[in-house]
């Protein structure tokens, strides 16, 4: 036993010469609580609060329109809708905790919506938007279709709310969808009121820790909903090579690119811990503190490149895809580059388990 201990000590001492001495006895130190407070207090909670106020405005506008369906009122519902949809982009990524409990993503933003189902729902007059079969006949994409129609004139859309056979039903449908969004938004904002302290104190890096939840949520969002949902699938890159321009987000309102840009920029800010013009503690700082400056540099550059590339796209994105698919593919490849350091290098460096599923390891 004693001999072994001796060997051990000798080995330990001798090995100090084999590696970079500056890396010996170094201390990995990072203010994790500080980062979580910054992300929670300055990014997540304000994002939800802003979103909530836009939803409130949308709800008011819809009520006004319901009582008085005029063209100016229709246009103000559209403005409020667009504003709420844009602000949703800043919250979508936080699908854990309260958002997960309220299943926000599945309730708010399943697209493309099923237009024939929506038409049937309108003519039947009684819909239950909580049933699973209506998951693609509710939320923002369905409101988008109700408010804009498929390339129809504003005057015609107004008629569908006033004079057409099912005008009353359609108004009811619109109201029901918006009030469902409001209910779930309010519930989520309320829940964050208490969850914020859990979020800030759930330290560590395990699957259920706040960093674990955040990084896993960022990964699945970036991969599936940002890269694939907003660009890859409609452009055909992630859908058997067949362009599906009608599967763009906000296809009927024609502001897909605006949504994409908002989403990507807020994603970039989240990574940097940035809010307004203040750059607080974020994952970028964490990487630097954990010997991952090179990964951080890649991520920052790739994110910036992707933002620049997305800015070259124009609305309507569906038209852009049809006319200039190659440029959309170029944007896609920039988004693709972000995934590798985000999903492979960063979690490995920080010791975060990437798995949206729980299991034992070796």
């Amino acid at each position: 036993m004693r001999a072994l201990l001796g060997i051990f000590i000798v080995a330990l001492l001798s090995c100090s010469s084999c590696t970079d001495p500056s890396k010996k006895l170094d201390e990995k130190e990072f203010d994790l609580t500080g980062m979580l407070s910054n992300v929670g207090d300055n990014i997540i909670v304000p994002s939800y609060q802003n979103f909530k106020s836009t939803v409130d405005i949308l709800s008011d506008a819809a009520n006004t329109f319901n009582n008085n369906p005029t063209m100016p009122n229709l246009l103000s519902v559209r403005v409020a809708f667009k504003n709420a949809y844009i602000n949703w982009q800043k919250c979508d990524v936080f699908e854990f905790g309260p958002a997960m409990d309220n299943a926000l993503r599945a309730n708010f933003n399943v697209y493309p919506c099923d237009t024939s189902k929506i038409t049937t729902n309108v003519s039947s007059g009684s819909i239950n938007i909580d049933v699973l079969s209506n998951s693609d006949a509710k939320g923002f994409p369905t409101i988008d279709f109700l408010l804009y129609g498929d390339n129809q004139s504003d005057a015609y859309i107004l008629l569908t709310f006033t004079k057409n056979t099912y005008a009353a039903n359609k108004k009811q449908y619109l109201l029901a969808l918006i009030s469902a969004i409001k209910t779930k938004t309010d519930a989520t904002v309320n829940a964050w009121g208490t969850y914020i302290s859990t979020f800030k104190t759930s330290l560590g890096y395990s699957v259920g820790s706040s960093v674990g939840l955040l990084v896993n949520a960022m990964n699945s969002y970036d991969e599936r909903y940002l890269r694939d949902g907003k660009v890859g699938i409609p452009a055909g890159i992630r859908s058997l090579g067949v362009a599906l321009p009608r599967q763009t987000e906000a296809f009927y309102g024609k502001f897909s690119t605006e949504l994409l840009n908002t989403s990507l920029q807020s994603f970039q800010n989240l990574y940097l811990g940035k809010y307004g013009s203040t750059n607080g503690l974020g994952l970028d700082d964490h990487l630097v503190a954990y010997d991952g400056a090179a990964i951080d540099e890649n991520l920052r550059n790739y994110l910036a490149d992707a933002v620049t590339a997305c800015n070259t796209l124009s609305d309507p994105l569906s038209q852009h895809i049809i006319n200039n698919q190659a440029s959309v593919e170029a944007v896609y490849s920039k988004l693709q580059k972000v995934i590798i350091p985000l999903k492979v290098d960063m979690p490995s460096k920080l010791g975060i388990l990437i798995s949206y599923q729980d299991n034992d390891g070796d």
Partner: protein
Amino acid sequence: MNKFLAYIQKPAHIAPLAMFRVLFGGMMFFSILRFASKGWIYDLYIKPSYFFTYMGFSWVKPLGEFGMHVVFIALALSFLFVMLGYFYRIASVSAFLLFTYVELIDKSNYLNHYYFISIVSFLMCFLPAHRYFSFDVWRKPSLKVSHVPFWMTAVIKLQLGMVYFFAGVAKINHDWLFNAMPLRLWLPPRQDMPIIGSLFTYSWVAYFFSWFGCIYDLTIPFFLCFKKTRTWAYVFVILFHVLTGMLFYIGMFPYIMIVSTLVFFNADFHLKIISSFNKLFRINSIEIYLPLEGKHSILRNFLLLFFSIQIVLPFRYAAYSGKLFWHEEGYRFSWRVMLMEKGGYAIFKVKDKDSGRSWEVRNYDFLTPVQEKMMSTQPDMILQFAHFLAEKYHKSGMPHVEIKVECYVTLNGSPSRLLINPEVDLTKVNESFKKRDWVLPFEE
């Protein structure tokens, strides 16, 4: 040789073996319940639409929702009956077969721990562990024996010792010893652990753990064998496994090892525990020797072969050039436990040669997160998935697709780089035991 044979034939008390049966069966019974309670039967064996089978075992298929639940109920009961020693012969065989069946369904779930369970369950099928301190003896007293040939308990010790020793041998590599990798990546994130957590931010702690782990694995089987060192060794066993159990997501394994290693203690120790159940099991001090039968020598020779294979298997990697942790040819079934931090991302690029269309695959449409994660770092699984995709496209009317993969992998904190040659059409590659020339070398 005769001297050796005489030595291993020497009668030894059965108590350690019987106790091992109780503990092992009990822990496994509990493990299966835990597995089910976590919803993993559904997540791992019902939900996936595709399963990564082992070479030569592609015929192993899951049995659907009802079937898999029946399998797990039968599996839990088998281990319970092993523990009780009730209809042990049937229970031990069914525990081995069912457990191994479940493990063969999908290599995404491969763990050295599960391999260990399969092997021990296999050994238990042949050992008369039910002939003492069991319901079988209570049911049929004539089964009772007090002594069995020494080798019958020794094989369990040998098996346990091999797990440790080979795990230690695997740790003798540059990354582990001289870079403290991957512990230098794994320890700092656990700094919230009570008491010692704050130490994990220092890299010397990672070096200490690496060296300690290596020396522990290499020496603990021997320290457990000698009476003089046994008690202290066992204290280390408990410390080591409790610590690793707290640090890493390794489920029941630490606890299974803690109770299993009790088999190294001598018969008196086990008899003391057993004596508290004295009356129920009619334990008395009468010595009854297991009758020596001709089939024992067949069994003994078979086990010699069995262990020889196990000794050779971990070294098969030597047949493949390049960095083992990177290409993983000859990695499994070798007790390489917690040796590397590896993460990857695989982008499958498909081209339909008939229509000229090309696209990327949404892996998550076909694979669960765990499957995708495991596949993204393991070349054989990447190839399997590519073949699965090719077949799928073929069936949907695209007989001439070309599938290439751009797969980025990080190993022990290295910057991510390509694992597979992105120019190779994987539909043209066949899986074999030959060196995989479509896997790119790891450039240091």
